């Protein structure tokens, strides 16, 4: 059974905190992605990575960074959390024909 696991289901952080969202996949996929989902805006791509230590900006990278030190792990970093980063964050990994998602992390920045 394929698995993408996000470290937290729910997080509450204060404005200005540094936040780490972790994602691990066990399918040996090269491609991994971070999205955020907001009402009316659908899934927006923040960053993706197609290989270890490689990263590419998505549509909304501002305020975020990523780290891919190992093939199975892709981390999303909010350097200084702000209230407009309150959202549902979704990690995915993909084969050429399908993307598999984690269960999501609901982040609230207060």
């Amino acid at each position, binding site marked *: 059974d394929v698995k*993408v696991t*996000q470290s937290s*289901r729910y997080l509450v952080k204060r404005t200005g905190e540094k936040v780490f969202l972790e994602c691990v996949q066990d399918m040996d996929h090269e*491609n991994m*992605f971070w*999205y955020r*989902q907001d009402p*009316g*805006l*659908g*899934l927006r*791509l923040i960053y*993706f990575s*197609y290989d270890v230590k490689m990263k*590419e900006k*998505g549509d909304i990278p501002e305020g975020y960074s990523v780290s891919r030190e190992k093939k199975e792990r892709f981390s999303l970093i909010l350097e200084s959390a702000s209230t407009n980063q309150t959202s*549902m964050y*979704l990690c*995915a990994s*993909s084969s*050429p*024909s*399908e*993307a*598999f*998602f*984690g*269960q*999501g992390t*609901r982040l609230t920045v207060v």
Partner: protein
Amino acid sequence: DQQVKQNSPSLSVQEGRISILNCDYTNSMFDYFLWYKKYPAEGPTFLISISSIKDKNEDGRFTVFLNKSAKHLSLHIVPSQPGDSAVYFCAASDIVSGNQFYFGTGTSLTVIP
């Protein structure tokens, strides 16, 4: 610029009737299309896919139709059930050269008992 569009943010259908969710794309290089279903507080799960060599793919109550000339695909759910109430995302990729999937903004389907 949004390459995959779902122009209906929401849809309500009576139980037992057909639900039709639509999706348009702009990139003629896209050759693989998928539909995902998402419940609140969960990640999207894969529902059904279609490659550009086909114009129809069926899996139980779910059928996806692809019209390449119109750059349009649709998901039909027949008969609709209350458990189908969820947000549905379409996605597209260029399977040969692409590394990423492009998602639409989603359509929230409510099936009324």
